[in-house]
């Protein structure tokens, strides 16, 4: 059992490391790095379930009978594209956030927002 499932377990550990970075880190770029790792690990999971022992790459050739499953490969090709699209959009948001907030740390941005809210309410109350 250990040998049969070892692969999956390691992949799960990888996913969780990615997820941990996304949740625990306050730096916006680091979060995106974590997101990439999380997604890539899910890709690794899909690809490793497609593997057949003794199989080979699913490109037909003479003299080969056993191929790995092509369908997860197709799915992951699509998912990789989705991943890069998300990363690109996230990064462009980070650039704009840096320009307007002068910071890319979650805490500092949150703080600035709160302060702005407070001052606005104060002026309104006094008015």
């Amino acid at each position: 059992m250990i040998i049969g499932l070892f692969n999956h377990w390691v992949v799960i550990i990888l996913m969780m490391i990615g997820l941990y970075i996304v949740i625990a880190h306050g730096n916006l770029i680091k979060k995106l790095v974590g997101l990439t790792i999380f997604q890539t690990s899910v890709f690794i999971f899909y690809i490793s379930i497609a593997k057949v022992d003794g199989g080979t790459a699913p490109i037909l050739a003479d003299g080969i009978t056993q191929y790995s499953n092509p369908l997860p490969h197709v799915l992951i090709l699509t998912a990789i594209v989705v991943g890069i699209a998300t990363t690109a959009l996230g990064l462009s948001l980070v650039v704009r956030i840096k320009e307007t907030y002068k910071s890319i740390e979650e805490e500092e941005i949150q703080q600035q927002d709160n302060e702005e809210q407070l001052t606005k309410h104060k002026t309104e109350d006094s008015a």
Partner: protein
Amino acid sequence: MITHLPILQVITPLMAAPICLLLNRSQLVWMFSLLASGLAFLISILLLQQVMISGVISYELGGWQAPWGIEYRIDKLNAFLLLIISGISTVVLVAAQTSIEKEIPKDKYTYFYVLYLLSLTGMLGIVATGDAFNVFVFLEISSLSAYALIAMGQKRQALWASYQYLIMGTIGATFILIGIGLMYQMTGTLNMADLSQRLPEVAQTRTVFVSFVFVIVGVCLKLAMFPLHLWLPNAYAYAPSIVTAFFAATATKVAVYLLIRFTFSVFGLSFSFTTIPLQTLFMALGLIGIFIASATAIYQKNVKHIFAYSSIAQIGYMIVGFSLSTVTGLTATLLHMFNHALMKGAIFLALAAVIYRVGNVELNHFRGLGRQMPLTMAAIVIGGLSLIGVPLTVGFVSKWYLLTALVEQGWWPIAVLILLGSMLAVVYVWRIVEVAYFKAPLDENIKVKEAPVSFLIPIWTLVIANIYFGIDTRLSVQVAKGAAQSLFGVSP
């Protein structure tokens, strides 16, 4: 062409998006996207008609048979959702050109419409498809365009809200991807109908259980269900008003649809409600969501925030109806999806008009608006009444069905709690009414004019629909009930 309706439904806005980019003249692009969205609406009406007459329509893409190729499968539930989404999108688009004048820089108009159409495509695609992985792909189309649209908001908070939504949304989508992967691993298929055939064989395995949990959690993240709702209020409040109107009316409905589709059609009723205590869990979360979100809404100073929190509360009602897992309960949920789309569409469009005239939607700036913008404010009031669930509005119909469903099951205390929750809605709606009608304007010298006609037409279309479907409930109830019955496998 009539047999190709399911694919045309999705393809029309999809192909229109790149064409818009080529046109690149703001007026022209607007007309064109309106045309595409209207066409989609027309197709959805035809589809619903066809489904009501002839039952499930299956469309095999590429001519490949179902588990090998991708299948579009339209039943009553899909057709109903397609109608809501494309209808709201068309109505909202009418006001778009005027509204974005004040909120989006001129050189970004074309991008706005392209993204809007793509977002519409994504939602329609999620709803129409019968393939689990295809759901993921179209989910990402709609989410990516949503992130960009939200980030177009004027204030810098829009960027931050969009970023948070991006992180949460991507985690949710990846969870769904994991869930689909596990399902696929146990059954070897991605087609939903095929999955529902093959899953019962392996229903006892722990893997299927985990895949179910992951799909549900992922969908709930997208759904902004109570403990996972943190991204929603800011995203709605800081997005351009047109975008808010569109998303508030449709985006969460799509997520609710996914929830229903996966629990009822893919995993099957008995599996979904027996392996984990889904009923108690969702009932509890739904109720807590209603109370906490409504209570938070009362203390907001920004009207968009008020209604964003109210949206979370309304999702609570849908979840409660869903968790009953009876035909009436599900009918109530479906009706509420339709009704909520109508009322939130009207309210947020009216807020867009207020932003157009006043510049912002802080509660203080509503002073005196009752007299200055009578038609717009009347729309907000009627929408608010509908939120509360006053008779003769649509809100009443769905609340009525929800209460009936609860009483059917003999759950009186929960029915009482739901009524109490509606009382909270009275409070926050009253706050707006009070400020708008009974307080003198901030500055008497500034004359605020009534909203332009291009706003009033869509707003009042929705408001009249609000009242019409509140009085003549035959059509909406018939469709919702039919959809619910078909999900339970009961012949009508």
